[in-house]
Each structure stands twice: as structure tokens, then as C-alpha cells.
């Protein structure tokens, strides 16, 4: 499996705390939908900031597409163009006075020309249904609209790896589903998506690859069916099993292809009932 980012014994400590990450070894598979899980303080947010080059590891090394991270200005520009970061709290991410200008910010920093930027913004605004809001100040938007704008602003930069910290945080079920639809579309276009979440059901249903962190190290990783089947490991990370796995376990069913969602589960149960 080809990896997009590789963590090689990466450790990181904040000045006032113990180690946030401790000799972390992990390879993030390219073109996959990856879910990063773990309890509070497991190191998910630190890992995301390391991915984007905001933080520099105390020891160890990260590499993007096989090339080790460098922290010079030019190298960071290239890295951050390829790795987009979406924060859980949109108000901390939105800086421009209008929606239109918010999307232009990253593009301008990439050194693109004004005309090219205008073309990209026009396309992104259509893709994310933001045309009606173009003159609005971002702080006036609803949480769903703000999240959509944040994602649009990051994606306008066309990163290869999109890192989302709690993409569905503060969103109602409808907008959360829409957000994951956007992420699925991007994955269909070949982008690698990494999300950090506490929602095991969402992670099980959505992701192709699961990473569970505990105390700054990888507790387990692999396919959702494998990772979520081990109740004891999940308990160690303060997580529970997804509802679908719990149902299968309680019914003592062991299908060769475990269902991903309720519809699949329904089909499976009907086939057993026949």
C-alpha cells in the first residue's frame, strides 16, 4: 500500500506538558479515507498540526510522498499547499471580511495570479453553493455555512491530503451528512482524507483505514472491521464498539463482509432470516 505521509518514530512535547506524541510510527495510505480515533489527550490534534508542519517533531521524522519534511520557508509552503488543514472551530479559521475574500486568502499566499484566483473562486463557490453568500462577513454565517466555507477555502488550494479535525463538530445531522458527502466526493477524485473524531459509528461507516491513538502512540491500526472487532483494545482507548458490530456480536453473526451501515445490516439480517 502506497503511503502519502509516513511518521517515523515521531515524538513531540509541549513546553509545559509531558510527551504529546511518543515514538509514533504510522504510514497513512494514499487515496484512502482515514479516521483517527482516540480519547481526549491521545495526541490527535498534535498529530494534525505536525502533519501540516505547524509543529516540528522533537525527535523522529515525517515524510511526504517519500520525501522527508523540511522546515524552511519554501519547503513549508510546498508542504502546506499539499496538506490542507480544517479546524474544528470555524471561527478560528475565518479571517477575511467577506466570504469571497476568505477563499482568496490561501490562493494568494500560494502565489497564484489574480485572474486565476478569480476563476478558482468562481468554481469553488458553485461547488459549495456559496454564491449567495459571497458578500457576507464570515462571522455572520450559520455554523454549517461557516464549516462549508472553511472546507471550500482549504480545498480551493487543491491539497492532496485533507486533514479535518472533527469535521462534523457543532453540525446538525443533515449538515454533518453533507460534510461527509463533500469528503466522499473529494476522495472519489483521488484525494486522501484524514479525519479526527470521537464518533466510532461514523468512523466505522465512513473510513477505509482506522488509526487509534493512546497516550501519544498508535494503539492499533487497520481496516474498520479488524480494528473495531477487538473490544478490549477499544476499551483501552476509552472508545466503544460501533453499534453495528455490537449487534453482530450479540447475534453471534460473523459474516465474511461485515455490513458498513444500517442498510447493509438490514440486507444481511434478512438474508439470515430466509
Amino acid at each position, binding site marked *: 500500500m502506497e503511503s502519502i505521509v509516513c511518521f517515523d518514530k515521531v515524538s513531540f512535547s509541549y513546553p509545559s506538558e509531558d510527551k504529546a506524541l511518543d515514538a509514533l510510527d504510522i504510514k497513512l495510505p494514499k487515496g484512502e479515507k482515514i479516521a483517527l480515533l482516540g480519547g481526549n489527550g491521545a495526541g490527535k490534534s498534535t498529530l494534525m498540526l505536525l502533519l501540516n508542519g505547524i509543529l516540528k517533531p522533537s525527535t523522529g521524522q515525517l515524510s511526504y510522498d517519500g520525501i522527508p519534511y523540511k522546515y524552511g520557508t519554501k519547503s513549508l509552503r510546498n508542504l502546506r499547499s499539499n496538506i490542507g488543514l480544517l*479546524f474544528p472551530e470555524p471561527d478560528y*479559521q475565518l479571517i477575511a471580511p467577506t466570504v469571497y475574500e476568505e477563499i482568496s486568502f490561501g490562493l494568494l499566499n500560494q502565489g497564484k495570479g489574480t485572474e486565476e484566483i478569480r476563476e478558482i473562486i468562481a468554481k469553488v463557490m458553485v461547488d459549495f453553493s456559496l454564491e449567495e453568500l459571497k458578500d457576507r462577513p464570515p462571522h455572520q454565517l450559520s455554523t454549517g455555512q461557516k464549516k462549508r466555507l472553511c472546507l471550500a477555502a482549504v480545498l480551493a488550494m487543491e491539497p492532496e491530503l485533507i486533514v479535518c479535525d472533527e469535521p462534523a463538530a457543532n453540525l446538525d445531522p443533515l449538515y454533518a451528512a453533507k460534510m461527509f458527502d463533500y469528503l466522499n466526493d473529494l476522495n472519489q477524485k483521488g484525494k486522501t482524507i484524514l479525519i479526527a473524531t470521537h464518533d466510532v459509528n461514523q468512523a466505522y461507516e465512513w473510513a477505509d483505514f482506522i488509526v487509534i491513538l493512546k497516550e501519544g502512540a498508535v494503539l492499533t491500526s487497520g481496516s474498520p472491521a479488524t480494528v473495531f472487532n477487538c473490544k478490549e483494545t477499544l476499551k483501552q482507548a476509552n472508545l466503544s464498539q460501533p453499534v453495528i458490530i455490537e449487534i453482530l456480536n450479540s447475534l453471534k453473526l460473523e459474516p465474511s463482509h461485515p455490513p458498513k451501515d444500517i442498510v447493509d445490516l438490514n440486507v444481511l439480517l434478512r438474508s439470515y432470516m430466509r
Partner: protein
Amino acid sequence: MLIEQVYNYKHFLADAHPLVKILYVLPAFVLVILSENTAFHGLVFCLFFIASNVIAKVGFIDLVKIFSIPLSFIFVGCFTLLFSFENSQNIGLSLDSYPMAIAIFGKSMGVISVVYFFLLTHTISEITQYMHACKVPSLFIELFVLTYKFIFLLSHAAKSMQIAQKCRMGDQRGILNSIQNYGMLFSTVFRHAMLQTTQLEIAMSARLGTNSFVFVPQQRTSVFSNFFPPILLVLVLISGLLLL
């Protein structure tokens, strides 16, 4: 009430070029400042009040509300001009000051109506474009944009914290405790601002940002005919000034 709360983003000039928009207000503003004709000030006030209602699409009640705030200050200021103090014994209203009070009141209301129309038809980004055009230092413009953003973020944070305090009956333990609570509220909001600044810096860095706030404004096209309405308005104002 804040201008933002009544701002209608679908006003008639929403897609107009900033140059066209400024033609509506700049000549009127200069004429009101230079003129000493109270009737002309009244004409400007009426025209721009109606324009704020019709062109900026702001409701009549909302307009009355936003005008009432400066009106109250100006009224108090002009009313004090009417007082006369003679030999520190006779204090009363003086008719001598009446023309001056009326002139100041008229001019102030004229200027305010023009400024409100400007604010109700311009976005912050268009105002920064004017600032750039006027060669205002970029540091000042960035401060302007940041102040604008933080006013709303912090007022929202302060409101949420105040509600949280009230929920725990923080305002019902006497005046002294209330003062203490407000002190804590301000210090928490300040800490919140510091935290937000750090987060904002991280978010900017993630999108290759340096420390400068540079954006690409929307492109507005203008044809020659777009300039006719503001030119007509200027002609009406000049005629009004000459006739009144």
C-alpha cells in the same frame, strides 16, 4: 443596534462598482460639510433617509432605530447650546444661540444620513479598497479588519459568558459581587481574545499565511450608464443648494 444587524446584502447597489457607489456619497458629504444652509441639510437628510430605505433596502423602523442613537447625542449637545449663563445668576434658554443650535443639528443629521447610507451600501472589504486607494498604510488597514473581526467574536464570547454567569445567579448577589463578576468576565474575555489570536495565527500559517491580511476583492464591472444615477443625484443636490 448595530449597522450589521440591519444591513441588507441584496440592496440595489450590491453589485455596483465601488467607484459608482462612492459617487453617491462623497459629493453629498463634501457639500453638507461646506454648506451652512440648514434647509439644504434637511434636503440631504430626507434624500438619504429615503435612499437608505429604498436603495439600501433597510426597513423604516430599523432606520428610525439606528438614527435615534446619534440623534439623542446630537439633540442633547444642541440643546445645551441654547442655554445662556449671564453673570452666573441668570440661567435660561437664549434665543441668540437658537440659529447656531439649529445649524449644527441640521448639519450633523445631514452628515449622519450620508454616512449611514455609505455604511449600509458598502461591505468592509469595499471600505478597505478605498483605504488602499487613499494610500492608508497597510498596517492600519489590517488593524481595521482585525478590529472588525474581533469586535464580533469577543462580543459573542462576552454574551455567552454573561449568560453562563447569570445561569449560576452571578448577578443576584449584590452590587459588589456583580462588579466582581463583571471584572472576571472582562478578564476571561481578554484571555479568550489571546487564545483566539493564537488559533488564528495557526490557521493562517496552515494556509501559507504570513502576518499580512491580503485578499483578492470581488471584481465589479461598470458601464458608463451606471454613473448616471449618482451624477443626477449630485446635480439635484447642487440645484437644491443653489435654490434653497
